[in-house]
């Protein structure tokens, strides 16, 4: 009998798009090694997969958006496509300037629908104070695509607040940008509000698995909120917990920084509706995607003040300090609601339905 392993040819599966272990394997095994040459060296090493590359002082990022349905409570694919790219620029410490708008449309999409989505993009861009500066339009035959895919790329420049912010950390740092390489034991981990709202809102819109929670997606550009934190200072790393949620983000941070992270589960803000939906489905809110939340690592002496500054902003009212970096453990450890300890793993992909 064989020892392990099937003989079936490896193919791309939906798991590869889940933002977890599989996606990481694909990117590190197949994509990054092939592109590791040419042009000026990025200022944050590509192997750490920062949300934006920084080349010659310019932050640069790209992202493609495919969501079903196109409209969901609290947002739509248009709002998502601008917020996501603005946020990817924001979290490395850049101030976003401009984004592009690449539309790939399935034949037959009502122009009225497209109009609504474009309006929503314009609105999100104006909230963020960025210009939608260039774009592209392709139409593909009916059935070759599910309605619409949007690609947005964005550029930004170093935030004028970043130097003073890093200075306030009061220690020497690995990078002059915001990256998990800067995290040291003792740094506090802050999340800017309730987690899982976006994922549950989309699930509700799909009417999947009988979930009818009254939850709105949190999709929003976060550069304004980020500015408040940088004004206070002491922020050494930042990221928005999208696919794979808080679990993927913290595991990535622990891996890149080589420092353990301890999270107090009770302090992680989760709305009641999301908590109920998760209980019913047997999933962990920490695995769920968000589109309008910031996670910050902050030097301990600045953490309380940064927390207050977030709470004073409309997008950060429910911000909490959820844990801290520690050298006592490897990876991400959760103190559970009853005081026990467990590891919080990198999500593998989408959960398989349970049978008993």
């Amino acid at each position: 009998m064989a020892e392990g392993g099937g003989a079936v040819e490896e193919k791309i599966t939906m798991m590869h798009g889940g933002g977890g272990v599989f996606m990481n394997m694909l990117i590190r095994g197949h994509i990054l090694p092939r592109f590791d040459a040419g042009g000026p060296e990025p200022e944050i090493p590509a192997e750490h997969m920062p949300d934006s590359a920084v080349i010659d002082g310019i932050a640069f990022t790209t992202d493609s958006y495919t969501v079903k349905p196109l409209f969901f409570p609290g947002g739509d694919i248009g709002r998502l496509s601008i917020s996501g790219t603005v946020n990817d620029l924001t979290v490395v410490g850049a101030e976003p300037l401009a984004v592009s708008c690449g539309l790939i449309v399935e034949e037959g999409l009502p122009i009225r629908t497209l109009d609504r989505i474009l309006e929503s993009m314009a609105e999100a861009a104006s909230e963020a104070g960025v210009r939608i500066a260039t774009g592209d339009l392709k139409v593909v035959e009916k059935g070759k695509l599910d309605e619409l895919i949007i690609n947005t790329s964005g550029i930004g420049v170093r935030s004028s607040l970043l130097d003073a912010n890093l200075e306030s950390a009061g220690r020497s740092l690995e990078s002059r940008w915001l990256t998990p390489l800067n995290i040291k034991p003792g740094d506090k981990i802050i999340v800017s509000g309730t987690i899982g709202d976006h994922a549950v809102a989309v699930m509700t819109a799909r009417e999947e698995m009988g979930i009818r929670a009254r939850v709105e997606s949190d999709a929003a550009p976060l550069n304004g909120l980020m500015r408040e934190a940088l004004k206070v200072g002491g922020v050494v790393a930042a990221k928005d917990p999208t696919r794979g949620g808080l679990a993927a983000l913290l595991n990535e941070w622990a891996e890149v920084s080589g420092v353990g992270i301890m999270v107090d589960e009770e302090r992680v803000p989760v709305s009641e509706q999301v908590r109920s939906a998760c209980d019913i489905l047997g999933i962990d809110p920490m695995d769920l995607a968000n589109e309008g939340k910031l996670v910050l690592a902050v030097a301990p002496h600045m953490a309380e003040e940064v927390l207050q500054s977030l709470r004073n902003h409309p997008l950060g009212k429910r911000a909490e300090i959820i844990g801290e970096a520690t050298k006592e453990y490897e990876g991400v450890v959760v103190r559970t609601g009853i005081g026990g300890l467990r590891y919080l793993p990198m999500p593998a992909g989408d959960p398989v339905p349970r049978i008993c």
Partner: protein
Amino acid sequence: MNDRMKEILARYRDRDLASKLVKEIHRLAKDLPKVRIMHVCGTHEWTITHWGIRWLLPENVDVRAGPGCPVCVTPSSDIDDAVKLSLEGVKVLTYGDMSRARGSRMLSLEDARALGGELEVVYSFRDAVNIARKNLGKEFVFLGAGFETTAPLTAYEVLKGLPDNLSIISSYRYVPPAVGLISQAPDMRIDAFINPGHASTISGMKAYKEFFEEHRKPMVFAGFEPIDVLLAIYLILKQIKSGSPRMENEYRRSVTWEGNTRAQMFLSKVFDLRDGYWRGVSVVPGGSMEVKERFKEADARLRYGLREPSGDDFPRRARCADVIKGKIDPPECPFYMKECTPATPIGPTMVGAEGTCRIWAQHRVTRSVRADG
């Protein structure tokens, strides 16, 4: 979720109550020798691992996961037969986890589908019935894995009448005799049992009486919140300390002595309890639910001339069987989190949401908590 539910949940997840119980457990365990407690339900293992309960227990209290995962104990011959039928053009309907478990030739139903076989994942047997009804020109087989928790729904549909084009491979297993068997296994040295809350809600506590009386080891029927499990451990230690083993019900909000008599009636009308193979364990006397002669047209074993269920057929050197029995913890298997991960499962214990390896892997547990190996 309504407010009443929320209130109950909050009470059973209360941190202060938990720390009080933990303190009591430490006090009771102080002058006891090693106590080995087994539960036989994947959901209990999930609760214990997810809430980090082992970390809170004294060193001499060892809680082990027994055969409580339906996917894990489904004989490899049943998976092989389903794979074969699927490749021959009979559409196999089964649960998501079951479709990923591999049989003797390292082939799962999902692998069979990639090779051109027919498979559709369903959430319940009723879905299977509806699918078969909508496609009367096609043959369907339902691979039914599970315990007395899921089997009554299947029995109910059989009693209502199945479409002619649907039959069942019954891999349903009955838990109480398995507890009896483990109770007397000398190599297991189990001192007490946390009995399954869901399965016992159906069977009632009465189903365990003969096995309790035979071996007189503490049995506490427990629910699935962290306080439920801590309370069960506390009650077991109290019984051991006082030297008076009992069958005790911690899960009164669901488990009764008689159980769900309506579900029991469905089961007894449709299934015979026979000696049956539990993968990784052995033949469990009266531990298997086979379709009664009366419903032979619904029995895929008869319709397609399938074999008697048998066979462990785990990959060489893999220790799935010892994990299923609860003899070892997953990290003691040479493949755990090396070749065998939730992404690349080799054995069934890494596939099922209730498989011990899968639950440990999900929580990235890499160290055994047992002191004596």
